């Protein structure tokens, strides 16, 4: 059932729901459907309506005091389906070693392994409507084990999860979706470890103004999850998952940059013909190159240059695709994992939104390790061209010098698959000494509050995060089912 509180009232009744989920985006919808399939009663509080609106997006405004970035109110969508409404549809699961990066993750690697998410890959792909694949994981002989051609998966057209499951949500007898129902706060028991209700703000016809449940989940994205936990901890003395002061910290995005331009020798082709479709081929760093290197993982893709002077026009050429017909010169782009960095963080601002909630101040920072990663990505490609006698690369000056601010970081350069991924702000950890949620996504210090989404990422890999986010949601559904089943 879907109820828009701007249009009609809703009475949740006296019985608590099994689970109350704040956030009707990819993570929340995947979780709710998985729980409903197991017979659980779930209510989703979605702050926005069925579609984006300026009024709703305004709640996401925030200050940016760090590196140049996309505005907070434009980089995510406050509506049913969340940011899947402007998703590009690119998918790639994490590699096993992405979970084992003791060399880059302060406090150590993830407390879970790839094997624990693998059982949920097929289900996640089904939810996201992944219906296309390109490429094949294939080592490049000329790269000395440093590069591989990788398989990418696609949801085509990109699944807008709210629309994709609109009928399911409307017909479900176990799911209630409240639209225009922003979660504005929580009520806790006297100790502060148990959430007793989520408050629903500004809903004109909501009756009552709060929702009770046995378990509660924050699934509002990498910014909002941290924002609400920071607000609550003002009153809870950091007991709610913030013993390590990690809430809002380790804010990561994927780093994106044109790293250089290359020329090809006669007959040269940087992509092996047997690696898959001529389009949408990526080269990525290998485990051999990256493990214990202190560098982030990365993937590369090229765009052809047709003639002199086309560099300025490059961004208007199809990016992410390699155009065979455009000749013998090209540009190469890198999308890099950002190394987790506590100084890169979100904090609460002094100003409030229309609901009276403190806005977010973003201070996104990159480190020397990130600059080294980007340079290494370029160098590896350059060495590959030389060793395989395919051509020669000229690395862009910005990348060579590591200048700051670097022009073109994030998706400001208009390329797909990077930027807009807001990760790491409620990181998963093995103990409460260096993270916000435990291996089951339960907030440290809480008995019934979970967080799911990219905010729990401990490292970001180079992969686009959506598939992993849904895998985490489906794994959380199993955890919750097990917990509720045991009473």
């Amino acid at each position: 059932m879907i109820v828009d509180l701007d249009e009609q009232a809703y009475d949740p009744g006296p019985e608590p729901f099994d689970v109350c989920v704040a956030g009707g985006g990819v993570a929340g919808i995947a979780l709710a459907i998985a729980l409903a399939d197991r017979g659980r009663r779930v209510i989703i509080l979605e702050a926005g309506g069925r579609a984006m609106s300026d009024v709703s997006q305004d709640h996401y405004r925030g200050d940016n005091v760090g590196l140049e970035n996309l505005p907070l109110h434009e980089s995510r969508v406050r509506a049913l389906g969340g940011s899947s409404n402007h998703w590009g549809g690119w998918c790639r699961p994490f590699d096993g070693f992405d979970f084992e990066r003791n060399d880059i993750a302060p406090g150590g690697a993830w407390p879970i392994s790839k094997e624990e998410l693998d059982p949920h890959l097929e289900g996640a792909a089904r939810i996201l409507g992944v219906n296309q694949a390109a490429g094949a994981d294939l080592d490049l002989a000329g790269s000395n084990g440093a590069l591989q051609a990788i398989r990418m998966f696609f949801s085509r057209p990109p699944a807008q999860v709210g629309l994709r499951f609109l009928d399911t949500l409307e017909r479900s007898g176990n799911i209630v979706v409240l639209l225009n129902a922003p979660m504005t706060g929580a009520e806790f028991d006297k100790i502060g470890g148990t959430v007793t209700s989520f408050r629903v703000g500004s809903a004109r016809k909501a009756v009552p103004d709060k929702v009770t449940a046995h378990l509660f989940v924050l699934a509002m994205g990498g910014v909002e999850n941290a924002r609400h936990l920071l607000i609550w901890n003002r009153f809870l003395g950091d007991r709610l998952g913030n013993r390590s002061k990690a809430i809002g910290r380790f804010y990561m995005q994927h780093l994106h940059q044109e790293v250089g331009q290359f020329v090809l020798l006669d007959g040269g082709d940087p992509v092996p013909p047997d690696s898959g479709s001529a389009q949408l081929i990526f080269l990525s760093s290998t485990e051999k190159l990256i493990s214990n290197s202190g560098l982030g993982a990365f993937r590369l893709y090229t765009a052809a240059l047709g003639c002199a002077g086309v560099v300025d026009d490059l961004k208007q050429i199809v990016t992410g695709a390699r155009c065979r017909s455009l000749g013998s010169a090209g540009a190469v782009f890198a999308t890099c994992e950002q190394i987790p960095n506590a100084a890169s963080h979100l904090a609460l601002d002094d100003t409030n939104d229309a609901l009276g909630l403190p806005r977010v101040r973003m201070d996104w920072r990159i480190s020397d390790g990130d600059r080294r990663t980007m340079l290494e990505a370029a160098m590896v490609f350059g060495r590959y061209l030389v060793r395989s006698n395919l051509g020669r690369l000229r690395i862009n000056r910005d990348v060579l010098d590591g200048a700051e601010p670097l022009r073109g970081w994030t998706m400001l350069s208009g390329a797909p698959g990077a930027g807009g991924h807001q990760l790491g702000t409620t990181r998963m950890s093995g103990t409460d000494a260096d993270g916000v949620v435990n291996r089951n996504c339960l907030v440290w210090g809480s008995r019934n509050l979970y967080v799911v989404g990219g905010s729990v990422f401990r490292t970001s890999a180079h992969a686009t995060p959506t598939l992993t986010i849904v895998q985490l949601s489906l794994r959380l559904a199993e955890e919750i089912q097990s917990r509720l089943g045991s009473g």
Partner: protein
Amino acid sequence: MVLAGGSFSDRTGDARDRGASLSRRNLIAGVCALVVSDGWAPGASGAAAENDEIVVIDGWVLARSDIARAWL
């Protein structure tokens, strides 16, 4: 074709004369202009040797033999 982003504009004369008079920066740009314009292939065998040293000059990632070739 002029290499996009390259700084070498004097593309007349032969490589030997150019290499003797150009700065290192322009030499490398010249190497790459040759790669583009003449189908020039590096190394005696047409391929960089497996143990050929990689050097970076003015942003260009090159085999050492690229430079030696340009000075011939």
